[in-house]
């Protein structure tokens, strides 16, 4: 009797929960004329409160105004983003589920995760997060040349922290090594903030991190940013040159885009693409992203698709080495 009690109570609880889950799944047929006719869900593959979440939520708020429907942001975390992205790719492609696609969308497939970049239709890029290389304020390395020269003289002895194994910032260190023909040693930490802290505290020689993570520490004099690994310089880092200008041709960084599961009907797609464009170019959105230290960059789906495929190919060769 006792064991049956255990089973029945647990089962009762499970059933009541799955009922609520079913309530979510109802409906689904798309009528292009009246799109959007109900609430849209936006999947974010990272935790609430992070930089990706902030970009996605701010954009969703602006898109609501254009579409006249509410957008519910749903965080599905885990597996470096693969849990949320896999979930998104398996949703019906009716326009009612959209998602935030980070740079990891084109990286994870090369890192042993079962994720195909072609599983998504792209609605446009909304944000860019250039990589930076920084040292602590009293570091002996005054310039990128000096850091690279030291790495050349003693291969593998110059340590560069990053936010985690397989992260875009670790890839940035690898890309820099390749471009300069040196061997900086990447040291993965558990998140971007601890990686920056390790550089400030002098436990590592340098840090590779996004501009939004290094710019504040550079502004109050804790870090010296040696180079920005981007095509253009940034207002957030006055006086900091691009690596290209300093003689090492490397451009790498994080980005964020909006996408849907592949196979979106054209009429629905054009409505969503317009809404993303309008929201990504709105003053409200660009103001929030600028304040967070990242760059609000809108790229239309066609141009972005070229870049997206180039990135997917690039990480394939980068990780193969």
């Amino acid at each position, binding site marked *: 009797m006792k064991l049956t009690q255990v089973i029945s109570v647990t089962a009762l609880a499970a059933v009541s*929960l799955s009922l609520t889950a079913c309530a979510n799944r109802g409906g689904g047929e798309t009528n292009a004329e009246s799109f959007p006719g109900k609430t849209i869900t936006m999947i974010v593959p990272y935790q*609430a409160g992070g930089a990706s979440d902030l970009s996605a939520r701010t954009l969703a708020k602006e898109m609501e105004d254009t579409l006249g429907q509410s957008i519910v942001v749903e965080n599905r975390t885990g597996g470096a983003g693969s849990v949320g992205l896999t979930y998104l790719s398996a949703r019906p492609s009716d326009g009612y589920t959209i998602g935030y696609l980070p740079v990891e969308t084109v990286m994870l497939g090369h890192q042993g995760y079962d994720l195909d970049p072609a599983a998504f239709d792209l609605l446009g890029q909304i944000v860019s997060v250039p990589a930076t290389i920084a040292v602590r304020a009293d570091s002996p390395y005054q310039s990128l040349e000096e850091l690279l020269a030291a790495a050349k003289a003693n291969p593998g002895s110059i340590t560069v922290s990053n936010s985690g194994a397989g992260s875009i910032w670790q890839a940035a260190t690898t890309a820099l090594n390749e471009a300069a023909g040196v061997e900086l040693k990447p040291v993965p930490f558990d998140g971007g*903030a601890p990686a920056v802290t390790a550089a400030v505290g002098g436990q590592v020689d340098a840090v590779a991190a996004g501009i939004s993570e290094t710019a504040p520490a550079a502004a*109050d004099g804790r870090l010296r940013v040696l180079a920005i690994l981007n095509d253009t310089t940034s207002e957030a880092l006055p006086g900091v040159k691009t690596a290209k200008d300093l003689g090492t041709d490397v451009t790498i960084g994080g980005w964020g885009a909006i996408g849907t599961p592949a196979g979106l009907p054209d009429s629905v797609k054009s409505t969503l693409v317009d809404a993303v464009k309008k929201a990504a170019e709105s003053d409200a959105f660009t103001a929030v992203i600028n304040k967070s230290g990242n760059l609000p960059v809108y790229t239309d789906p066609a141009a972005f698709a070229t870049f997206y495929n180039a990135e997917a190919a690039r990480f394939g060769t980068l990780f193969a080495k």
Partner: protein
Amino acid sequence: MNAVAEGLGQIADPFVLLCILIGSLVGMLVGAFPGITATMSVALASSFTLTMDPIPGIAVLLTIYVAANFGDRIPAILVNTPGTPASIATTFDGYPMAKKGLAGVALTTSAFASAIGTLCGLILLVFAAVPLAKVALKFGPAEMFALVVFGLTMMVGVSGGKIGKGLIAGALGLALAAVGRDPITGTERFTFGQIELSDGIPFIAAIIGLFGIADVFDQMLTHRPETFTAIKNFGRWWPNRSEVREMVKPTAVGVGVGSVVGIVPAAGGDIAGIMSWAAAKKVSKHPEKFGKGSLEGLTAPDTASNATLGPSVTTTLALGIPGDSVMAVLIGSLIVWGIQPGPALFTTRPDMVYTIAGIMAIATILTLALSLLRLRGVTKLLELKPAFLWTVIIVFCMVGTFAVNNSVFDVGVMLVFGLVGLFLRRNGFPAGPVVLGLILGKLAEGNLRRSLEIGGVGNILTSPIAMTILVISILAITLPPLLARRRARRATRATTTV
């Protein structure tokens, strides 16, 4: 002093005070809900507060942070389920007290210990922020590794007297911590192709399973309708004079441990609570009562886990480094509001420090008052028939666990850990060391591997801080048995001479 007046003046706004009231109600509620952590609720609230002005926004977020650390004690004491990880150690003695018919005293004591801990931590924030934060910066991977090893020595302490079984449970926890991607190379380990496991075993799901679900399962199996008595009897609500006196020492221990752990980046209330419980047991005159409903064993972790709040904020504001996971979320909001945490904050916006300390102090006192009022109502829940109560607890735990990652997989993990916890409990293995191993194992491995990457073994051997902590850890394990043997020898000698 101008900054103090200006900082506190910003709070004396009816709207800000209203925000504090709302924050503490929300915070207590989410804290009491197993699975919903302070981090998660602050993260969700921050999407609403970003549209507000900075001061009221900060008031809501910080108050949720403070109040969640009160609310989470209620399920820990009444149903053996920590509301948030910070109250894991509260279950060690809080639940046994409740079973002994002292639920009222336990809840009141816990509320006061939490309030005293928070307020002491805030004093640290106000007076010692800058110098203390500099110490935190010295904690790199080598030093963190040493600190975590010291934390692991506490396994013996949380074993509840059964050292052998405690160590086996601890080893299980450490083994489980190895699941997930390798922290340095990113290679998959023991994930069996499950992407949900690539970040490791979902920690919240595991602790809810090990504590709450396991206890419900256990009650179901051992329940005899005729003999079962639900915790209806809360007994007295106020501790008597001798009990208050008993609380002084563990409070001091709690404040000490909590302050140190709080300052260290990324170490929070869960670790502080467990460490403080073990430390208080060592200095107690009645260590044998720990784990069986000791008032000291309840006071120490509650004081400690709340004493981490002030120092966490200190590290965050003074260094721009998140002192714990809630602070990591808060930094994001602060930056958008144009308040950049870091050493410069103390010169550019000194008033901010006092505003924040003031908000947290008011939140603490208000939440203390709320908990003393509301506790009587909350506890009515337990007058339900056991079968209904179990269903309610299991549903709450499932919903809470699901909400962490919107993941059904996590709910499955929770149920599996419920069974694991049931097995451990029925065979006399304590659950505390499993959790300790699971939390600290990952930190120990990540930091050890990182420091080896940076400078080999020399990276640890040449760090005075790391070596000091490691030596203390060795002493913490070896000294007590040596002393005990010496005492025993002396005692036998004394008896033979007599």
